[in-house]
């Protein structure tokens, strides 16, 4: 159970990215956050693992206050939260294997990993994670030799290495074409069915309909909607995306 309580974030330059946002996420949910660019989706996700510190409010996960955790405890919390990024955020010049293994840095012996030495079972685990996303054969390629969809699968494998209970996916398919979008989201759905809570921000409404168990919508940092995807009618849609917006289906692009 993840509780977001009255979270606000104001950046040093004065931009108010989140205004008093509250909602709960139950274990096992596939929660999708929607909203326009700049509505605060990325900030919200990064507040959860405190890549960004919220200015006000609390985030409580299974009874632990993430917002108040000291650095060492924060790292312990973070290693249970996997994260998938829009730009994949792989080290392009490192091998796929190294990128995946780096998801395990919160667990392994710090001295050996500093020298780049990894135990055999970790390597095995990395191969398994790559196998689950279907690219075990690419383990020894350089990350930038892979296509966009493959790189995002490496990103998911890296998150899997953390043995996460929660995955934060920040626009995981925004840089991919529609067919690949579905395949990536299907991997996340599969993980969700295995019991991992997923919080994902998305752009296209048809993807929301297809995958979300629940939806939260943000507009200018304010929560404007919470409910199931089916509850978003034309009026709600206009409220979230503005008067001029037209619904575009990912599949039609």
């Amino acid at each position: 159970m993840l509780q977001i309580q009255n979270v606000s974030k104001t950046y040093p330059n004065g931009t108010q990215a989140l205004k008093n946002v509250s909602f709960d996420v139950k274990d096992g949910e596939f929660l999708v956050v929607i909203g326009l660019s700049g509505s605060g989706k990325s900030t919200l996700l990064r507040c959860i693992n405190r890549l960004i510190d919220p200015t006000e409010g609390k985030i409580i996960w299974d009874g632990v206050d993430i917002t108040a955790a000291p650095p060492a405890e924060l790292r312990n919390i973070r290693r249970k939260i996997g994260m998938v990024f829009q730009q994949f955020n792989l080290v392009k010049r490192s091998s796929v294997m190294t990128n995946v293994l780096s998801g395990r840095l919160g667990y392994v012996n710090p001295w050996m990993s500093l020298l780049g030495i990894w135990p055999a079972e970790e390597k095995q685990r990395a191969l398994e994670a790559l196998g689950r996303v279907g690219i075990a054969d690419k383990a020894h390629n350089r990350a930038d030799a892979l296509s966009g969809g493959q790189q995002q699968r490496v990103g998911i494998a890296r998150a899997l290495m953390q043995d996460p209970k929660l995955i934060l996916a920040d626009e995981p398919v925004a840089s991919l074409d529609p067919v690949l979008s579905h395949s990536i989201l299907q991997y996340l759905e599969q993980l969700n069915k295995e019991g991992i809570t997923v919080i994902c921000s998305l752009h296209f409404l048809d993807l929301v309909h297809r995958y979300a168990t629940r939806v939260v919508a943000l507009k200018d940092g304010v929560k404007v909607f919470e409910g199931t995807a089916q509850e978003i009618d034309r009026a709600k849609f206009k409220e979230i995306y503005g008067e001029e917006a037209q619904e575009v289906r990912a599949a039609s692009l």
Partner: protein
Amino acid sequence: MPITRIVRNALITALVIAAFIVSLRVTEADFPRLFRDLPKGKDLLTAFLTPDVFTREVETRTISIAFPIPCGSAPTESLLPSDGPRLVPSVNCAAPLETFTLQGFDLQPNSEVVIRWRLPDGRTMTAIRTQTDANGYFTYDVQARPIQSSVDGVPSRLEVDTLTPVGGLKPSQALKDVMDNMFVTIFMALLSTTLATIIAAPLSFLAASNITRKGCVGTVVYYIFRSFFNLMRSYDPLVMATVFGFWLSFGPFPGFLALTVVTIASLGKLFSEAVENIDPGPLEALQATGAPPLHTVRYGVVPQIVPDFISYIIYHWDINVRISTIIGFVGGGGIGYYLNLSINDFKWNQAGTAIWAIVIVVWAMDFLSAEIRKRLT
């Protein structure tokens, strides 16, 4: 075209022309002189194009006869041999500056001949060079040069060396010296690049805005290192070497230090730019996995910058070899020092050897560094 633009272009053109006219005056350009005196450069170029690379081993045989100047100051050669290698002067003594004919018989055939005077005190003077024919015969009109008369009855002597090439070609002394000095040059570049890398790599992080420019202290540190790099980079290593040479006296060591200081600045700037250009995404991803800070750097920053760093280091080694070939001109040691010495002694062939060596080494380094850098990216 609007009138303002025409005026502007005319103004710029006028400015450029004025700048060139001022430059012509300031640099005391004298093109007629260049063409008039161009032949002066001919000998120089000919010598450069015929570098002193190989010598033949030479067998030297010397024979001499006593030749009193003036007559009567000492006994003349009592009896000249009539066969075998021998020297026959047309007179057996002469007054100073009198000219006589010297003939040589049955010497080494087709050999270079050096005729000189050995004075009573043992010094030698005036080497005349000529050549023997196929029978080992030469003749030459010699002037009686030793004005100093015989001392204690010891007369001046006429000495003749015949130089016969024997055996094959072998590397000349100049070639050996050039290789010795080139060796110093290459190592000077290698060591200074290495030392500069060791110092510049950590400093470059302090001059990278994305790492250091945080808070008041960080900003100050950032600007200090940035300005230091920019300032030091503006000096040519040779300018730096003049001061280091003045401090530590001549030799490769001050050259090495000067090169190191300038390379630190230059590499530091390039390194810090490489650090500034890294993709912050992977750092964020690693932080999100709960990795400790040092590991974030090890897995997020280092793999991104190492290829750039290596490429810059090799590039600078290339540049430093180039510079260390000339740093000897201002007292930095190495091949430049040797070249400078050769030029000051008017040994143009030796200088030619050094210049060819420089061309070859610079070329090879250029090629090597380009190849390696191509592979890296």
